[in-house]
Each structure stands twice: as structure tokens, then as C-alpha cells.
């Protein structure tokens, strides 16, 4: 039995004509780590808050452990939530913040002490138990917020952009800590982020959202290698996938002017105009005779990679090269595309032209 089931879930605010969440369907299995990812305003936090019970559900059904919970108050949903800005009580010590839920539930004092101490040990907060939140760093505060969630042994963790307020280095460290915590506790987790790196590195499955619509649900690998539409293809991956106009002929892909790009990645029903997508790392340097010329507009040296930006038949593209290549602005380089790495999209619907079975392969 699935842990959580969302059936045709939708949300409409008063006085607003359109839904902010449309027909959201998802089944989450026990111990899964699900990440909702999408740009600002895509409805990912709203969906999470509907699961938490902090927002009402205006359409559809939400099931938890086989129980319809649409009208069940948050406290009876047996979940714990971690917020972006920690939501710690400034007047309480770390101990009391972690113990908050247990005290509200009138758990015995010695049990509270034992549980809080154990949680503090897991999160390495033991020496901070008597401090107030303002005496802690951002990372420590978020650990306290995590502590408040895990101390209750809740059935489900909901995390709303918990790392967004941290600096880049701390974010990577906390990301690892959350992954390890999930491995250790095995609690089903729904995690909201706008950061595709977090989604890719943490998720068992990713749900990509845009304007309240689910764009694709899949493992990080599926989402990255087989995006179902241009939005998913461009949102996941940094730098984003390159797109340019092309033609599908019965046996090959060509530019609009008829020049050959490469072989078809799979049998395609459709012929004619298409949007061709290719990831920056699937473009390789070629020799002058066989390669496609690309004038370098500018480069970005990242240490581990070299990004080369230019225009191909009017479309901007970026090429990801190894850092030891010596490429300078204004130079003409010659490129070719790795075979079978093309993504083909319908220019009108922006949906992938590759069949679902091929996407899954």
C-alpha cells in the first residue's frame, strides 16, 4: 500500500479565477524521498502545505496510510514540518524548541529529556541545548528545526526549502546531513526546493512543477536523461539544455537549411520541423573538416569545467568542455554532437517526440 496518495488534487484561492494547483496525482511509497522542484510560484510549497493541512484542499483526495485526510487537522496527520526560516521560538532554548511538540502532547518529562538528548546527539547539538536560537549559526538553527521534526518519530517529514537561507558551503554540508538522516531514520520525506541540484542529489523521485501543473515525475536519472517536455529539459541541468530549430527527415536530423546534424536517436513518427535539444556536455570538439563551426562569444572557466558560449544558426548554445582546452573569445571552434543524445520536441506543444517507452529506456 502506498504511504501517500494524491488523487486529482487541486487548489483554488478565494477571489481567484484559476486554480493554483491543477489535477495533481502522485503515489508515494514508504521511505521514499520525494522532491518537488520548480520555479517560484509553481505551486510546490502550496502542495506541501496542503499535505500538511495548513492549506485547505479545494478539489481531489489526499490519502495517508489508507485514510482520507482532506478534513483531518494537521496535528492528527502524524507529520512534522521543517520551514525555510527555521520557525524556532526565540524565547525558548534549543532543548525547549526540540521538546516543543512533545510538551504540547503532554509526554512525560523524563521521556522528553531522553528523546531530546538522543536527538541532540544525532544532530550534534548536545553542547548547545541550553542556548537560545539567536546564539546559534544558520546551520545550527536548521539542525534544531530538524531536531524538532525528528524527535516526535513522525510518520512523514515535510521540508519547505529548508536550505535556502544558508550559504552555499553550508547548504552542501546540510544536504549531506539530511540525506544521511533519511538513510538512518527511513522516514518518508517530501522536500520542496527551487534548486535543481538539491533535487538531483537528494531525491528518490522528483516531481517537476510549473504553473501548478505537474510536468514530470521520475527518478533524477529519468528526469535528466529523458525529459518529457522542453520545460523539464531546460529546468533540470546546469547549464541548461541547448535548443535549436531543426528538421526531422526519414533518416536523419538536419538544420533548417538542410545541413546534416546527425542520425535520429530513435524511430520517430513525426517528420518536419522540430526543436532539437542537446545537453552542453553532449557537444564535443571536432576537426575542421567534419565539425560545425561555432564562433565563441565568451567563455566561463569554472575550474572543473570550461563553458563556451556562442551562436549556432541564430540560436544561443553553450558547450561544456574540459578545463584544459584553450579556447578564447572570438575564436572559431568546430563542434559535433554525441550520437543518440538528441532530445526532440514538438515546436508547438513543446512535448517530447520520443515515445514514452523510449524515454524510459
Amino acid at each position, binding site marked *: 500500500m502506498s504511504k501517500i496518495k494524491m488523487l486529482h488534487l487541486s487548489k483554488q484561492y478565494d477571489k481567484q479565477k484559476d486554480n493554483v494547483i491543477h489535477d495533481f496525482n502522485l503515489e508515494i511509497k514508504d521511505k521514499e524521498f520525494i522532491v518537488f522542484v520548480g520555479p517560484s510560484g509553481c505551486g510546490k510549497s502550496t502542495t506541501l502545505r496542503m499535505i500538511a*493541512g*495548513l492549506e485547505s484542499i479545494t478539489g481531489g483526495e489526499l490519502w495517508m496510510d489508507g485514510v482520507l485526510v482532506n478534513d483531518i487537522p494537521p496535528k492528527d496527520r502524524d507529520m512534522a514540518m521543517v520551514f525555510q526560516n527555521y520557525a524556532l*521560538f526565540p*524565547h525558548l532554548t534549543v532543548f525547549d524548541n526540540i521538546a516543543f511538540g512533545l510538551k*504540547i502532547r503532554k509526554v512525560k518529562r523524563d521521556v522528553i529529556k531522553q528523546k531530546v538528548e538522543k536527538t541532540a546527539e544525532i544532530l550534534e547539538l548536545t553542547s548547545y541545548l541550553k542556548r537560545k536560537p539567536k546564539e546559534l549559526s544558520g546551520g545550527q538553527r536548521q539542525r534544531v528545526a530538524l531536531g524538532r521534526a525528528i524527535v516526535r518519530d513522525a510518520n512523514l517529514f515535510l521540508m519547505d526549502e529548508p536550505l535556502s537561507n544558508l550559504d552555499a558551503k553550508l547548504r552542501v554540508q546540510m544536504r549531506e546531513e539530511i540525506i544521511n538522516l533519511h538513510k538512518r531514520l527511513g522516514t518518508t520525506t517530501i522536500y520542496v526546493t527551487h534548486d535543481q541540484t538539491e533535487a538531483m542529489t537528494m531525491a528518490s523521485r522528483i516531481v517537476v512543477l510549473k504553473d501548478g501543473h505537474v510536468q514530470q515525475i521520475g527518478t533524477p536519472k529519468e528526469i535528466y536523461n529523458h525529459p518529457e517536455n522542453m520545460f523539464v529539459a531546460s529546468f533540470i541541468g546546469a547549464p541548461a539544455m541547448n535548443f535549436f530549430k531543426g528538421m526531422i527527415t526519414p533518416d536523419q536530423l538536419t538544420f533548417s537549411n538542410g545541413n546534416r546534424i546527425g542520425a535520429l536517436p530513435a524511430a520517430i513518427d513525426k517528420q518536419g520541423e522540430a526543436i532539437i535539444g542537446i545537453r552542453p556536455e553532449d557537444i564535443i570538439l571536432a576537426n575542421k573538416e567534419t565539425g560545425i563551426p561555432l564562433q565563441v562569444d565568451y567563455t566561463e572557466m569554472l575550474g572543473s569545467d570550461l563553458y563556451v558560449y556562442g551562436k549556432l544558426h541564430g540560436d544561443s548554445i553553450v558547450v561544456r568542455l574540459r578545463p584544459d582546452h584553450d579556447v578564447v573569445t572570438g575564436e572559431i571552434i568546430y563542434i559535433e554532437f554525441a550520437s543518440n543524445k538528441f532530445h526532440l520536441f514538438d515546436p508547438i506543444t513543446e512535448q517530447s517526440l520520443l515515445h514514452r517507452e523510449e524515454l524510459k529506456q
Partner: protein
Amino acid sequence: MNRFGNAGKLLFFVGIPMIPLVVFWFVPMAVSVWLSFTNWDYISPTFDYVGIENYASALTSADFYNALKNTIFFGFWTILPTIIFGLLLALLLRKGLKGLTGFKAFLFAPWITPMVAMSIVWSWIYEPDVGLLNQILGWFNLRQPSWLTDSEMAMWAIIIVTVWKNAGWAMLFYADALSKIPDELYEVGNIEGAGWLQRMKTIVIPLVSPTTLFLIIISAIDSIQAYDQIQVMTQGGPAGSTRTLLYLYYQMAFEQFNMGQATALATLIVILTGVLALIMFYGSKRWVHY
């Protein structure tokens, strides 16, 4: 040279604003303390030094202790309801009712109305035979007291007016303090299953405690300085039941022309206010969460 320049600047920027403070506050206060050791009668040009006699007679007189008791009673029963009503009104208004701004203005209006004008209107409301309050009590067959002439009720009448004036003002401060509590904290309470009372106890009251301290201090000073409503409605009566320390001072100074004793009383009021401020300052370290 530079040092002198800095000292000059300091004198200029600090010294000039200090002039009115010195002229209208420090000097009268020092003169007042000096007068408290004399038997000046406010009119005659001569007086004698009497040492601490004025203080001794104040501290041994029944009037002083009666006025002190009245002041404490008045202070406690105006501060507590002002704070409770202010917070409850602010919580009510937080719900986002229609016409909120108008309602807030309506509740705040008493604060900007002069106390004298309000006290006159309230003395009509308290009128035992035709006053509005007793008319309403009459509809419900409740006792209709002689509000301003019954020594049991007169202080309560003054307290009601003062609370009515101050509650809207306290509400504005609380509304601001409540708006600064992040929604997530209520949501944590909601997820953890905290009821209304628990949310009040664990979230609202601790997080508005700086505002509560501020309101207590200001209301305490305000209640020590209460004069207008007493003067208009009861003149300290009946039988001294509404005579607070400040009103006793007024009567000693300007009705009995006993300026020496009056200034001794004024000095005692200042000392009491100082002690009160100290208690609150130390209390705040434990009870107020910044």
C-alpha cells in the same frame, strides 16, 4: 585644538537641547526638593526650614497611606484590563475583518480625545437617575449604583473611564507586535496540536512581552499621573475614596496651600516611581523576551 573642537561640538549639540530640560525640569525639581524641607505656604514671602518634618508627617499620616493604597489599586486595575483588552482586541482584529481600519480608528478615538472632555461625558453617563449606564442596567433589572457618589463605586467609575481611554491605544501597539510574529510559528503550533490557550501561552504572550513591558511602564506612569478624570468626576471623593497620591499633592498644594508638605509628597512620588521602574527593569530580564 582638536580636543577643544570636539568639546565645543559636544557642548553645542548636547548643551542647547539641554537648556529647556534644565530650566523646566531639573531646576523646578531641585527647587521642589528644597521646598520640601520648608514650611512655605505658597503665598507669604517668608518660610522656615523644618528639616525632615514634612516627610515624617507624610509617612505617618493616614491620608498618605490611603492615597498610596488608592494609587496602587487604581494602577493595578487600570493596567491589567488595559493590557488584556488591548491584546484581545488586537487578536480579534488580526483575523482580517471587513472595515478593519475604520474599526481600529473607532477604538483608538478615545486616546486622542482630551481626558477632560471625556470625563465630562462620562459623568453624564454615570448620572444615577438619567445616565445611560444606569438606564442600560435598569433594562436588565441590575443594581443601579450611584457611581460617582458611592465610595464603593467611585474608584471603579474612574478606572472604567481610564481603561476605556487606554485600551484602544494598547491595541495599536499589540497589533504591531502581533504582526511581527512570523506565521510559521503559529503553523508549528498548529502542526504540533497546540490549542488556543497553549498558543497564547507558548507563542503570543512570550513574543509580545517587550510590548507588554512597554505598556505596563507607560500605563504605570500614566496612572500615577492621573488627575483630569479625578478632578472632573469626583475631586478625590467621596470620603477620599478616589484620592490618589497626585491628587493628594494637588489638594495639599493648591487647596490647603501647604507647599512644604506637598513637595515632600511629590518627592516621595518620584522615589516610588523610581523604585517601580527598577523592579520592572529587573523583572523584565526574566519575563521579557527580546
